[in-house]
């Protein structure tokens, strides 16, 4: 995937489009399906993921030369889990209502394959600053996919946007859009469109 080291802002930029973790690498699908029926939950999930990615990549990169190869994955999971628990505790203490609404979603950041994909695939071999940028890029790339999907699913499924009713009450809600299978359809359609755009670009 990485042909030679990508440094600095190039590491961030490529994650937004060319190597977008969700579209290009099909990572992080599980959470993409779970949280995208409400824009608010999606936004907090995205911010949490960006923070976790940046911090985990930074920490792993700092320790990359001392981590024994044999246990590197365990150490990565440990670091990721520590940051996610940190987010959960801070939310519980300062934003209890949002934390309550998000329920188990925050804890699920640990299982987001993007985080481990970036720590293992990039941070283990690159400098801390580059790794932070790579992590933030991957987080934003993830958000660029999730937010549009949530912006389609919430209005169609619930008639609301960010919890505010935007579609008149006589609108027949598409219950289908709220449950996970529609996440598959929306995501697949999104990936299809983006891939078509990408390949169109390559031909030219």
């Amino acid at each position, binding site marked *: 995937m990485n042909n030679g080291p990508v440094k600095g802002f190039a590491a961030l930029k490529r994650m937004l489009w060319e190597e977008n973790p969700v579209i290009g690498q099909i990572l992080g699908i599980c959470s993409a399906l779970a949280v995208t*029926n*409400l824009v608010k*939950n999606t936004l907090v999930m995205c911010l949490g993921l960006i923070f976790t990615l940046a911090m985990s990549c930074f920490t792993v990169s700092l*320790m990359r030369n*001392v*981590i*024994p190869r*044999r*246990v590197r994955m*365990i*150490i990565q999971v*440990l*670091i990721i*889990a*520590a940051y996610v*628990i*940190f987010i959960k*505790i*801070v939310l*519980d*203490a*300062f934003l*209890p209502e949002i934390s*309550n609404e998000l*329920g*188990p979603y925050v804890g699920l950041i640990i299982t987001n394959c993007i985080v481990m994909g970036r720590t293992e695939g990039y941070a283990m071999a690159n400098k801390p600053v580059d790794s932070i940028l790579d992590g933030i890029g991957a987080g934003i790339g993830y958000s660029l996919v999730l937010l549009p999907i949530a912006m389609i699913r919430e209005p169609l*499924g*619930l008639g609301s946007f960010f919890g505010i009713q935007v579609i008149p009450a006589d609108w027949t809600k598409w*219950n289908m859009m*709220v*449950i996970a299978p529609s996440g598959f359809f929306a995501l697949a359609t999104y990936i299809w469109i983006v891939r078509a755009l990408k390949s169109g670009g390559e031909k030219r």
Partner: protein
Amino acid sequence: MSEKIRTLLFTVAVTALFTLLVSGINALLKERIEINRSVARQRVILGLFGLITSERQVADSEVPTLFAEQIEPVKFATDTAFECYRRKNSTEDVFVFAFSGQGFWDNILGFIAVDSKSQQIRGIEFTKHGETPGLGGRISEPEFKARFKERSFATKRSDGLYFRMVAEGSANRGDEIDGITGATGTSSAVEKIVNRSLAYFASLNQGGNSN
């Protein structure tokens, strides 16, 4: 061999370090989190007694004081663990008690306010549930909770329930409550939990309470 020992020591050291950091942050913020939780509970109970409304907002910092001033716990001799409250020095027979039960996905917890003199439900609040957002999750919307208001539980139906959840929009009797379309599992779980909790409270209250 030394490589193996180094790996082991490294893993133990890193685990200890991160465990320490996480528990440190937890210890620092634990008190705050506990207060948040108890304020949230007290807010729900005060809301059910009508002491906090959308017109009469109370700041988080004042909730514990208001609760201590206005509310007292009620203990029943037959079940001392049953969580139940009433207002201090009130002539009304309004009780708020906790309920719990299995929902469609996860346990549903909450409080019900009842007037034991007129045998009516005053209100219901769900404090924790794991129902599908937008479908079963609608149980925590004000519109759904209002469906229980002023319902009488003086008599049981022929099927042994106080209420039945029926298809949304089809409730036209006092003992029927509109369920939620697309969340039949949640609706029947709520039906079960509310009926059971009311029956249990009625049986406890009959035995008299000992404060």
